[in-house]
């Protein structure tokens, strides 16, 4: 069993309440930071820890914080990105539902390090029930003097607000999130300027994922160097993986970075193997946006090294034979899964969630979805497969925000690794029509 840093207190009864959390060592990071450390020392610890953004891109959090424009007198903001909408990812929801105070603690310490006096938690609209849990936690922390004016007599003041969105995937993109928080249409902004210099209300802003911010508290308590010892290479610390798909034990697991993918899928303490002792067919390692990996590349990289659950190892081989750790949403497919249908389903999601601002993504996602719908429903043409590859190539890299890339990668990788299956769909339409997939409603009929 690996070491647990985030979820170590999760089994304590009543941990949702402030008193139980406090009695179990909670908020000691706030005390340590505010009483004994300067903001720059906190920033140094985070830099030393080498923690990488847990939202998907894996950008080092300490570096992101150091980009914050400190030259102006404008107020600075910290935004916690709780708009977790990636299909296959459900770690932030779990964390907020079970350990709200861990997040609040991380927010206080992070805001202190950044010099922000206002902090927003932008939460996804569908997570309505979490708003109450978080607000109760904020209320309790405020009552006990951890939020508000002059926290622990240090002279530092902080307010935390919870802001529910309206349930758009695109609002998880940081600039779209800021637009939405300002009360506008959730369209991503054109960068530069980056949020670090001009973000919320044109003021310097840092946007971080829930898991990243929740890790700040433990990092301060144990020290950045100690935290960096966990994990391998540049992937330090522990990571929450939300495992789903055809496995025996779906759920959220905390792993030390560096265990092998094979161990994670087959060990009993994690996923517990494939459901019904079937064969593995493919995995999606980091939420629906990342390229899909076929069975022969899951456990070994193309260079025949063991594939580990780290940012680098999963990305080994680029997009030809690798994928990304992304947000840690592992989806496992057994031998019965239909990759064409899966790709269509992902594509349908991106078509629905494209904001419609820039042309390649607005038109391209819809086009791909319609073509995939035809292939999946027995009306495909053989030239459609190359057409899909070409559309995804044309979208990739030409859009304002990464949603276009996220829509293009699953399609391109599915065709790269499972081309025979697409060809089978085109050549045997009658067999395809008789497939039974359960009763999935048709949301979009092109």
């Amino acid at each position, binding site marked *: 069993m690996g070491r647990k840093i985030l979820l170590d207190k999760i089994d304590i009864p009543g941990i949702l309440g402030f008193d139980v959390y406090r009695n179990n060592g909670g908020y000691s990071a706030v005390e340590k930071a505010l009483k004994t450390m300067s903001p720059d020392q906190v920033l140094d610890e985070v830099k030393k820890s080498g923690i990488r953004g847990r939202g998907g891109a894996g950008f080092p959090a300490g570096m992101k914080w150091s980009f914050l424009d400190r030259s102006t007198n404008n107020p600075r903001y910290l935004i916690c990105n709780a708009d977790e909408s990636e299909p296959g990812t459900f770690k932030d929801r779990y964390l907020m539902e079970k350990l709200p105070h861990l997040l609040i603690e991380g927010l206080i310490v992070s805001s202190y390090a950044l010099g922000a006096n206002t902090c927003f938690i932008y939460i996804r609209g569908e997570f309505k029930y979490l708003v109450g849990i978080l607000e109760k936690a904020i209320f309790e922390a405020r009552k006990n003097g951890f939020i508000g004016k002059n926290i622990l007599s240090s002279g530092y003041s902080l307010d935390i607000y919870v802001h529910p969105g309206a349930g758009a995937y695109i609002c998880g993109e940081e600039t779209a999130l800021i637009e939405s928080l300002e009360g506008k249409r959730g369209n991503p902004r054109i960068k530069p300027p980056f949020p670090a210099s001009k973000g919320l209300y044109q003021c310097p802003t840092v946007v971080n994922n829930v898991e990243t911010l929740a890790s700040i508290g433990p990092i301060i308590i144990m020290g950045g160097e100690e935290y960096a010892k966990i994990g391998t290479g540049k992937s330090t610390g522990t990571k929450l993986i939300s495992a789903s798909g055809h496995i025996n034990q779906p759920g959220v697991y905390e792993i030390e970075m560096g265990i092998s993918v094979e161990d994670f899928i087959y060990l009993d303490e994690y996923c517990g193997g494939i459901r019904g002792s079937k064969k593995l067919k493919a995995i999606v390692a980091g939420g629906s946006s990342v390229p899909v990996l076929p069975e022969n590349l899951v456990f070994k990289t193309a260079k025949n090294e063991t594939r580990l659950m780290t940012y680098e190892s999963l990305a080994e081989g680029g997009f030809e034979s690798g994928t990304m750790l992304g947000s840690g949403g592992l989806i496992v497919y057994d031998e019965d899964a239909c990759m064409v249908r899966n790709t269509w389903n992902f594509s349908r999601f991106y078509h629905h969630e*494209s904001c419609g601002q820039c042309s390649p993504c*607005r038109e391209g996602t819809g086009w791909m979805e319609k073509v995939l719908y*035809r292939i999946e429903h027995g009306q495909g043409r053989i030239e459609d497969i190359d057409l899909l590859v070409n559309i995804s190539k044309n979208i990739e890299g*030409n*859009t304002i925000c990464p949603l276009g890339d996220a829509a293009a990668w699953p399609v391109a990788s599915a065709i790269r690794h499972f081309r025979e299956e697409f060809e089978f769909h085109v050549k045997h339409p009658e067999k395809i029509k008789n497939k039974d997939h359960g009763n999935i409603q048709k949301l979009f009929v092109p």
Partner: protein
Amino acid sequence: MAKVTIDNHVVEVPDGTTILQAARLIGGDIVPPTMCYYSKLEGSGGKCRTCLVKVSQSSGKDSRPMPKLVASCSTPVADGMVVQNITSPEVLEARKAIVEFLLINHPLDCPVCDQAGECDLQNLSYEHGLETTRYKEERRDYPSVDIGPYVKLHMNRCILCYRCVYTADQIAGKRIHGILYRGDVAEISTFIQNSIENEFSGNIIDVCPVGALTDKTFRFKSRVWFLNPFLAHRDCPTCSGKVTVWKFGKEIYRVTGRKDQFGEVDEFICNTCRFDKKGSEDWIIESPANIDKQSVISQNHYMKIKKGSIIKPLEQKTEPQD
């Protein structure tokens, strides 16, 4: 000041200028086409992606290329930057793809569209588009609606450039229309059947790069290439009164703002000038207007337009060493 090289032409511009504006200073073939950017409207640009260019050297200090193609309308220049537009096959390839994307949901009803002949999308697809379509699916379909007494909205033709939204915000003062929904079902609409009646609202017709917003007083009257444009003015209490009138014989068929060489309106005009003053006695004619050679209006000149093609980079002249 920053020295920028765009397709082997060197230009010196103030810091903060965008690549597109620097290219416009040089002029000619190397200016990237734009569908959504409008220099007079703050915040426009970056959406259509037709102006993508390749930055092969980020700045004098940093000789690395930028990893992706960048939108030239919203990327500021840096000293020593090297930009490739029509010298890069990658850029032309991407532009071709963008034109295809813009056209897949476009009804291609140019034969009955009032904008035909002065349509940015038509020109763009002539230069960069494919001759056939690979799109075999159904196109999105909306009914055409009246938004206000003067403007007709054909949502089918819209490419969602947001120009009219910015115009209503910044020129007309009060905006009562906007974008509803998202993705490829997003549409321009007035909330709850409002009508657009603001004094400067007619300018949304001029800024529309396609035939989505058309002049109801000119609908189906004539094709634009049969009309003769003249620069004219009148003493208008609301606007500058400097317009282009489009005449057929002695009759004035329509009035529009004066456009510059990049298809942008110089001075926005009011609705009275645009829609109500159509008698020859209302206007003082100055001179015939220049016709953009890119446009169909200059009859038969389409053949002379260069199709988008890669030009070979000029050979670097090495200065003789002393």
